[in-house]
């Protein structure tokens, strides 16, 4: 497990506080009457991997989806508090979500390529933003696929349907699709939980790569994974952010008893 140790070293060095991409303040969220997020205060830093862990139903996905306002797809949702993205409060109803989502990419638990060709999957984003020039699209497709470390595997079958690929490839395709519109932040919700160990490893390596250019927030139920790839880790429970710190600290000296219970496998 060479790369894991490498990272740990770099991480230590970076302990100077970097810029905040997001700053979440007193965020509350309800699904109808269910209080799913309770007073969450949660900064996210530029060009880091931030992991969110916690038992099922604790609000990890909810929080992640709030960051690009995808959570609004559930009609009964309402929120209080603010989330500042690069200084602007994205919870403001006047904030244009299409804009936000163009800048904040998202990768889901189950790979969800469109039932189109590999090429069209990647080109989808640029196209809706008005890029029609075939040459430029070719360019974007190639660089995105390279960025997602999958170019070599698919370059000869760009016209084939994306559903002919393996789960791991599909997931990297989805990452490439997110890269194609050159986001600032990438949100990932358990991106490897549907993958086999080998594909998991590939995606984990990829995340390490991407960190150089993007800020990444990742939800995972696999604590080892959080430990392996993240710079900071947040532990949530019942909609509350229990503890948030450098990953090493969380796993080695958790301050909260509940964090410790969870990490040592008392529940979940």
């Amino acid at each position: 497990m060479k790369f894991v140790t490498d990272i740990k070293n770099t991480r230590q060095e970076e302990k100077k506080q970097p810029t905040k991409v997001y700053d979440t303040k007193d965020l509350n969220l309800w699904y109808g009457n269910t209080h799913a997020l309770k007073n969450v205060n949660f900064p996210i830093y530029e060009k880091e991997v931030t992991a969110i862990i916690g038992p099922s139903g604790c609000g990890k996905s909810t929080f992640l989806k709030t960051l690009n306002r995808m959570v609004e797809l559930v009609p009964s949702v309402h929120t209080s508090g603010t989330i500042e993205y690069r200084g602007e409060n994205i919870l403001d109803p006047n904030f244009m979500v299409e804009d936000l989502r163009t800048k904040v990419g998202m990768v889901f638990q189950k790979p969800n390529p469109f039932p189109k060709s590999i090429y069209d999957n990647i080109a989808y984003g640029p196209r809706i933003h008005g890029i029609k020039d075939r040459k430029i699209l070719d360019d974007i497709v190639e660089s995105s696929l390279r960025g997602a470390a999958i170019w070599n595997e698919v370059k000869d079958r760009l016209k084939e349907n994306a559903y002919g690929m393996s789960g791991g490839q599909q997931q990297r395709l989805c990452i490439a699709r997110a890269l194609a519109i050159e986001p600032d932040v990438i949100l990932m919700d358990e991106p490897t939980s549907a993958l086999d160990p080998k594909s998991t490893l590939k995606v984990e390596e990829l995340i390490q790569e991407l960190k150089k250019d993007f800020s990444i927030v990742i939800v995972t139920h696999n604590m080892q994974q959080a430990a392996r790839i993240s710079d900071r880790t947040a532990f949530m429970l019942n909609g509350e952010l229990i503890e948030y710190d450098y990953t090493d600290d969380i796993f080695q000296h958790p301050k909260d008893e509940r964090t410790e219970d969870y990490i040592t496998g008392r529940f979940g």
Partner: protein
Amino acid sequence: MVDNNKESTSTVRVKSMIEKNRQKQSFRSIGEKAVPNLLLGIAMISILTTIGIVFVLISETFEFFNRVSIVEFFTGTVLRPLSQDPKFGILPLINGTIISSVIAMVVAGPIGMMTAIYLSEYASDKARRVLKPVLELLAGIPTIVYGFFAFTFVTPFLRQFIPEMSATNILAPGLVMGVMIIPMIASLSEDAMNSVPNAMREGALALGSTKLEVTFKVIIPAAFSGIVAAFVLGISRAVGETMIVAIASGSSKNFTFDITQSMQTMTAYVVEVAGGDASRGSTIYYSLYAVAMTLFVFTLLMNILARYIARRFREEY
């Protein structure tokens, strides 16, 4: 926390009781054997009747073609079944059927599709809960009511704008048929669009798409086969619709393309002939079967086509 006394007493009892019952449980095996056979019998009745339908149609149609050449039937543009010198060309009926169906689909296609888009992609839960039952209501209205509506309301209404329109014409029933088919197209297309996993929508929205783009660039392409199937079934429904045309489009057997004129569809022909002269054995009696068979084959093909499209082109997601 476990009451051991209680349990051990009943343990002996229950276990042995079950054991004992199992020995003498011939009653169960009788049910096990008899029921499937009984059900098989019932299923056979259903299946035989379906075979019976085809058999009756084929044998009587055969008799018809003994009397009238199949070529004349399918290529003749003159239909004069009752005349001294009868002519049995089905083309006027096919023409009427196609024209009325096209009119219906021109109404039902776009409106049904837009309704499906609205219900599946835009409507709030509340709006959907109100609108869907109303559409179901529209689908549940007997066709005789639509026929009445076309004849006593829509035609007079249209004649204010098209004075040369005939009192019985193919336009009004075609339009009303379209209204009747809207719910079918809407709900089948909506089903198809609904069955596109939410993950697709989320994937597209997360890339900054508007709902409109999600709908047209992702959902509709993904649900395309289901939508085509809905349209095909809609056409099949229009072709088979009877009372609306029987009441509102008259019984002229004109071979014309003027939609303001009276035309007859295959279904309306059956109503006219069967309602009047359906005495057994006459050629005109057998012509009913030939027309019904044509209808049957046509709608069957449409149904099979719809099914094939839905299956063959089903996207895998």
